[in-house]
């Protein structure tokens, strides 16, 4: 008799990998066209205005197409995300350039193009508001009474008093830019009228959002709405909240036409009019003793939420919780606001507010070290959170405290100290070299950070994640979750985790494309597949096995016997199904209003080292290599985990150095994949991912979140490396050559 070897920690091959490699994995735009109509969006061409109506050019034969405006919506005209402030189609006001005003469906693309050309939006302009300060002045109101979507305050001790008595107080203001997700598959939805309801297929992360949204929009019961997330070609948060609007649009057209309607964005439309990462301005006032002990932190952060609330109220929460970084300080005040402007709505993006907060705190800390005359490594060692240390929310991290360990390991893996010295020597000698070698300067820098696993306490309950396992006639077991495969490897990982709980080979577990009829709501996003959902799957697996063994009346350690037993029971007409729902660990306490308590069940700790070379003739930066060390508790699939880290670091390097959204009157000017420059293979260095695995008892089965984390390290590491190379502290990402070169030249004139 043989028992099953655990599949956890094995690089199990990607389940849908072969289909993707053969080219027969279908994304939404690959579905057969069979009679489907093509849809397009009529958009406002001003950033802020009163909407007067639409004018149809009567030279076009409007009987050839179907047109929908807000007046045609049978239910409530709302995109229900958090605040319910966003209409599906504009009704009274235009709040951003590109806001959908009407929808058109046509039998073919040329007719659609002509129809879209034959309609114009009539508006009466209002003064637009684009930046944070203008929004805070509240002379022009876009949202509520003061343009603030949400304010989060976190208090620990008495920061004001601490800063008054601190030996040294250092201030710093940092800025981060918008970032485009640039998933390779543009947004798309296909909706089909089924006689008394709607079936929607599309590229998305969160199918359950869409069920609720479409039911409200069409005034139909939720059970009449079936959402089938399609294989999704990259998401990064961009297909979290936005598809709630897009799927609603497709559903409206399917309802009106009684046909199947495809609404697929082309790349430029996707880049101009879908959400971006929230731009941020973050101010720090930080108090130290003379020898570098952190005694007080004040953080004042404002995020630019764009025209509507979308995910902003949750993004600002995560930003605030992460704002003090992985540092121990007894007196902290964090004030975080997210405000409305006439930009397209900002939305979810890998890291969900934390990257902005962590960039500012770790770049600032490195700067503080330079002001204090202390080695930044020593400053971190002195102040990082240790065992039983407390976060800004008062959360005692207990033994979930690997900040020091990831730091030391990263120093060792990257040979940090020796290289820092070698680069300093290289830079000192630069001018004495001949030829082209006199121009480059080199630097190495690091960032230390953490990321809360799963959603914050409040959100996780809100999403009441669930999973189910059921037995099949052939003895295999299907794992049901609504976790969508967006490239992260969900299907494979879900099978690994369910197999672990069941104690059977991973091949015996089937994972299906989820749909909202059969699959329980496992909640969306936020690096949760391996952790929250994984925990549920393992528990469900154990219960499933116990149930089978109970009915059989004996233990079934041999997987073949177990499988045969499942088959026999199912054949005998028995229903084998186990469901599990998330409830937070009983000792977790969270006060949402005060943002006090246990924000997350666990934290992933990480240190990112970046070495780079600056061409001082042009200010161009070449990253030489990156080392990312993280304690993830438990690695479920090493190949996937390394892939997540490498991809996340790449996206973080893009945000840090290259990806500059150029705005003009609230419209992205460089909305194509050449001028908006995500990194190519030639821009990226070798990226090493090193994992520590300290199982965390409050994290289900020990695994902590991974997907978002690696995005967060590069920006502060790059800015810190630039200071090491040039002796200049940069306060903004992306830190482009247009910023670097003048700063370097000004410094050399001094």
């Amino acid at each position: 008799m043989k028992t099953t070897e655990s599949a956890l920690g094995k690089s199990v091959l990607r389940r849908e990998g072969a289909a993707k490699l053969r080219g027969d994995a279908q994304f939404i735009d690959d579905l057969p066209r069979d009679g489907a109509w093509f849809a397009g969006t009529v958009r406002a061409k001003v950033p802020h205005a009163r909407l007067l109506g639409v004018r149809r050019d009567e030279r076009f034969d409007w009987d050839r197409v179907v047109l929908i405006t807000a007046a045609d919506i049978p239910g409530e005209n709302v995109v229900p995300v958090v605040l319910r402030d966003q209409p599906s189609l504009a009704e009274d006001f235009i709040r951003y350039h590109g806001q959908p005003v009407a929808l058109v469906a046509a039998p073919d693309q040329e007719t659609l193009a002509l129809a879209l050309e034959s309609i114009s939006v009539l508006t009466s302009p209002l003064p637009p508001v684009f930046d944070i300060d203008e929004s805070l002045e509240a002379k022009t109101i876009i949202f509520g009474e003061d343009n603030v979507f949400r304010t989060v305050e976190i208090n620990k001790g008495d920061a004001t008093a601490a800063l008054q008595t601190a030996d040294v107080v250092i201030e710093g203001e940092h800025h981060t830019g918008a970032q485009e997700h640039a998933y390779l598959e543009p947004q798309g939805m296909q909706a089909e009228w089924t006689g008394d309801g709607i079936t929607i297929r599309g590229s998305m992360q969160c199918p359950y959002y869409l069920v609720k949204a479409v039911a409200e929009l069409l005034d139909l019961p939720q059970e009449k709405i079936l959402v089938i997330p399609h294989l999704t070609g990259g998401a990064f948060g961009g297909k979290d909240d936005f598809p709630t609007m897009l799927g609603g649009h497709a559903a409206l057209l399917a309802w009106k036409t009684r046909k199947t309607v495809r609404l697929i964005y082309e790349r430029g439309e996707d880049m101009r009019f879908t959400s971006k990462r929230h731009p941020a301005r973050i101010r720090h006032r930080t108090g130290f003793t003379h020898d570098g002990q952190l005694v007080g932190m004040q953080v004042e952060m404002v995020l630019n939420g764009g025209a509507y609330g979308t995910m902003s109220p949750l993004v600002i929460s995560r930003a605030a919780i992460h704002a003090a970084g992985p540092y121990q300080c007894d007196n902290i005040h964090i004030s975080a606001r997210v405000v409305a402007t006439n930009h397209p709505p900002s939305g979810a993006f890998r890291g969900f507010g934390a990257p902005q907060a962590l960039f500012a705190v770790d770049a600032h800390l490195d700067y503080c070290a330079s002001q204090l005359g202390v080695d930044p490594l020593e400053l971190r060692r002195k102040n990082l959170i240790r065992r039983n240390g407390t976060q800004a929310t008062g959360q005692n991290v207990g033994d979930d405290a690997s900040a020091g360990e990831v730091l030391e390991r990263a120093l060792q893996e990257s040979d940090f100290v020796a290289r820092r010295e070698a680069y300093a020597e290289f830079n000192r000698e630069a001018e004495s070299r001949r030829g082209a070698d006199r121009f480059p300067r080199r630097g190495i820098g690091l960032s230390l950070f953490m990321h809360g696993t799963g959603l914050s306490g409040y959100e996780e309950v809100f999403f009441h994640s669930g999973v189910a396992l059921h037995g099949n006639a052939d003895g295999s077991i299907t794992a049901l979750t609504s976790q969508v495969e967006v490239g992260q490897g969900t299907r494979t990982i879900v099978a690994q985790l369910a197999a672990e709980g069941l104690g059977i080979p991973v091949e015996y577990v089937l994972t299906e494309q989820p749909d909202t009829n059969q699959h329980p709501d496992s909640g969306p996003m936020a690096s949760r597949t391996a952790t929250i959902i994984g925990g549920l799957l393992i528990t469900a697996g154990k219960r499933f096995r116990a149930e089978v063994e109970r009915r059989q009346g004996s233990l079934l350690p041999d997987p073949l016997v177990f499988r045969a037993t499942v088959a026999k029971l199912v054949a005998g007409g028995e229903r084998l199904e186990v469901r599990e729902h998330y409830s937070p660990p009983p000792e977790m306490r969270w006060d949402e209003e005060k943002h006090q308590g246990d924000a997350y069940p666990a934290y992933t700790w990480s240190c990112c080292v970046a070495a780079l070379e600056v061409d001082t003739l042009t200010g161009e930066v070449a990253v030489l290599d990156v080392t990312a060390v993280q304690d993830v508790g438990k690695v479920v699939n090493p190949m996937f985990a390394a892939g997540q880290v490498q991809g996340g670091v790449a996206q973080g390097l893009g945000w840090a150095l290259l990806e500059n959204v150029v705005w003009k009157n609230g419209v992205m000017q460089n909305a194509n994949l050449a001028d908006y420059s995500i990194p190519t293979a030639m821009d990226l260095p070798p990226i090493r991912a090193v994992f520590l695995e300290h199982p965390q008892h409050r994290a289900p089965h020990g695994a902590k979140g991974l997907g978002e984390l690696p995005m967060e390290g590069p920006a502060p590491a790059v800015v810190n490396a630039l200071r090491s190379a040039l002796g200049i502290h940069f306060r903004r990402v992306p830190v482009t050559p247009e910023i670097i070169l003048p700063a370097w030249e000004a410094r050399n004139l001094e």
Partner: protein
Amino acid sequence: MNNDHVFRFHVNGHPVEAQAPPMQRLLDVLRDTLLLTGTKNGCGRGNCGACTVIVNGQAVSACLTPVVQLEGADVQTVENLSDHDCLNSLQQSFLECGGTQCGSCTPGILMAATAHLRRGGGTNTEELREMLAGNLCRCTGYIKIIESMQQAAAAK
């Protein structure tokens, strides 16, 4: 206005007669007419490489290739790489090394890599980075794509 013409060329070894307006993109002919949807429409401007196919031995963007210029051409798409369900060695390396994540860029990268390896292009990391520069990937940071290509090349 009907401006369709018939264009004759080969796709994946099979003769094809495509009826289309002359400036129709090869991308649309492949995806809409021939239902070969493995070739992806990532940007439509030749910036992302997702629609890379091999025309007469060379990697090109199907979105920038008008069908009128394909008369008599030999076009190969990702659907031609594997023998039925059996992955070829390059595809198998991508599976084993983690060279595909979301999969949108994958067909284009496989075709660019195939053209490169077939003509005996270099396989050190720098050469492969340069060869990949016309193919964007947002998931992998390219590391495992390069490893996949090197494993496939080494197996030859």
